[in-house]
């Protein structure tokens, strides 16, 4: 059996070597094609790169989240403690929705969140505090999707994706920046890209024309 992962055509653009006609040629070409895909995939996701990008991502995502919640602190009652103003996530609404917390409970939740985010951004037990951060964000997002839109939702998904990034330490004991496979960073990049790709698709495939002027008035 031909080893498709290792065999390569020695002269893919040159004249064919004698004795390479028939089924063997097809099988060898297939192998080269597949191995090229595997190689590209491998390089795209699993090449090792310095982790400074992941560490900066960790710090800036934490900073962004703090900047997102601090302006909301004076309005927590309005945003998270009034059932008349909430728009629960449709999936959670189908199973009864999340329980509403009293205002003091919302304060406790948000202060715990900000503390965990600060620890995460500083790299203090970052892996451990990420779980409570995701749980609290999931509660706040599920409780009311109306005040988390667009980039707020994107940030939530980034909190999931960032778990795949090697953000734990910037430097090794010898002082050099650590290198690690970049697949998590690639996923974060692809997530960013998909936002703009989907935005374009939503606008160009039945975008403006789908809603008449009258329906945008109410």
């Amino acid at each position: 059996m031909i080893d498709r992962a290792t065999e390569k055509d020695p002269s893919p653009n040159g004249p064919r070597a004698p004795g390479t006609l028939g089924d063997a040629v097809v099988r060898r070409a297939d192998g080269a094609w597949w191995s090229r895909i595997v190689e590209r995939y491998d390089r795209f996701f699993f090449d090792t790169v310095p982790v400074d990008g992941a560490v900066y991502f960790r710090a800036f995502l934490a900073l962004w989240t703090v900047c997102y919640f601090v302006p909301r602190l004076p309005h927590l009652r309005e945003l998270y403690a009034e059932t008349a103003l909430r728009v629960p996530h449709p999936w959670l609404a189908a199973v009864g929705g999340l329980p509403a917390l009293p205002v003091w409970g919302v304060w406790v939740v948000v202060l715990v969140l900000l503390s965990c985010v600060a620890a995460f951004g500083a790299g203090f037990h970052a892996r451990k505090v990420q779980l409570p951060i995701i749980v609290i964000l999931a509660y706040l997002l599920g409780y009311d999707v109306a005040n988390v839109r667009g980039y707020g939702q994107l940030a939530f998904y980034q909190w999931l994706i960032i778990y795949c990034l090697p953000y734990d330490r910037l430097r090794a004991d010898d002082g050099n920046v650590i290198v690690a496979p970049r697949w998590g960073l690639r996923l974060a990049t692809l997530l960013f890209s998909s936002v703009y790709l989907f935005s374009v698709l939503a606008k160009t495939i039945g975008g403006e024309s789908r809603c008449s002027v009258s329906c945008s008035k109410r």
Partner: protein
Amino acid sequence: MSMASSSTPGPLRRHANYVILLFFCLHVGLVLRATVPLPGKVHGRWPWRMFEKRSTWERVLRATGIDANGGRVELPLHRIFGYARGTTRLFIYQQLEALNDANGAAGQAAFAAYLARRASELGLHVSSVELQWIATSLDDGHVEEHPIGTFSVGALP
């Protein structure tokens, strides 16, 4: 800035492949959900559709309180609602689906009751609340009124 070829250990790499596969499957699923005519709620809209349509109308909510004697007073929404999105005047009620849904009477009544309760904290005691959207065309300045309804708020929550 590639430094070297992958040296990811087997188990970690296998898990990474699963996560990558899940990521791509989710995105393919989102595309199919938006493009294939699926039945009911299985069919969905595009994700990240914030630029899908550009409204040529700007609208504001007008809430009028009616007291027991029939007196009418406009409720001060700018004092009732504190949080606005960024530096805009998009208050939280702009995103309330019930106020945009003709069948959302329960949500509209709850919202009216909330307004009445907050208004009473500001010294305005009303027995019913009338809600309507005031839509202004950004193209020609034309103004239209779109009534939502009048809701009795005698029993505050």
